[in-house]
């Protein structure tokens, strides 16, 4: 009896509603609700995980944020300190990469940010860049 009662603490219906709100229960708002259900954005060239989001000068303009969600705003703010990659944004915002891609796509459309293209897959970066990477690593 007591046992089954104790097991019941994992049951959401047993009168411990706060158990719903810990991280294990998952997000309170489903991730793609933030994108209003969209899983890709219109302007989508595929954004690589290490594509870097760089704010446009217009992003400093305070009057522009009326239609943006808090997540949009946070992306711009995070990137204005130091341009960040899609992967970093996803980790920092604790959102799936797919959601971040859609949100960044919105910001690209609004011309608040632009996204750098990483080195195209077929070609390795310049040998000179590789040398700089090696020197940089040795100097760490």
């Amino acid at each position, binding site marked *: 009896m007591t046992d089954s009662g104790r097991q019941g603490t994992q049951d959401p219906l047993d009168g411990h509603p706060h158990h719903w709100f810990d991280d294990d229960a998952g997000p309170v708002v489903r991730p793609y609700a933030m994108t209003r259900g969209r899983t890709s954005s219109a302007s989508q060239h595929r954004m*690589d*995980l290490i594509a870097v989001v760089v704010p446009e000068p217009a992003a400093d303009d305070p009057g522009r944020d009326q239609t943006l969600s808090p997540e949009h705003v946070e992306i711009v703010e995070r990137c204005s300190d130091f341009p960040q990659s899609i992967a970093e944004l996803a980790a920092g915002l604790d959102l799936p990469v797919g959601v971040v891609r859609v949100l960044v796509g919105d910001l690209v459309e609004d011309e608040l940010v632009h996204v750098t293209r*990483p080195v195209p897959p077929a070609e390795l970066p310049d040998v000179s860049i590789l040398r700089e*990477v090696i020197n940089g*690593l040795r100097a760490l």
Partner: protein
Amino acid sequence: MAFGRSRRTKPPVEPVTLKILVAGGFGVGKTTMVGAVSEIRPLRTEESLSEAGRPVDDLQGVETKTTTTVAMDFGRITLREDLVLYLFGTPGQDRFWFLWDELAQGALGAVVLADTRRLEDCFAAVDYFERRGIPFTIAVNCFEGADRFPTETVRAALDLDDEVPLLMCDARDRESVKNVLVSVVEHAMILAGRERQPATM
């Protein structure tokens, strides 16, 4: 209001970003390796998947759940203000192989971490990078208490091409991991030089 921060005078530097993958079997030390050199605590990012887990994950009671998430960890090394290297630990579970394609795209190269007690765990990764022509280095993580084998023995066991670098390393040690990464980039440079005209070297 939301963007009401001090107006910047110069635009932010747009860094060139490069990525190196860290692959290997489950529990071989990928996260440790990323953490040893990353300037940020290894971050995890999650990707939503729609199909992968369906036959595997127990969805009883949550039948409407059509996505599952998988985490990859990664770290960052800022080599210069305009040159940033990202390290991505690839998901260890076999059923997330398809995620590797996204990670591998545009990758500079890869580290395949191996544990001599479970060498077979890294066969799949070696095979993957060989097939796609992605430069990789084998880094044998020398666990305490594990037998040490001569590199030639490991090489033979993995049936490696002669040109593939193989190093012994300690995934916890920054210097050791740096050496491994340098080896990956050097190897990538050699391959890149071969593909281009020798004159450009």
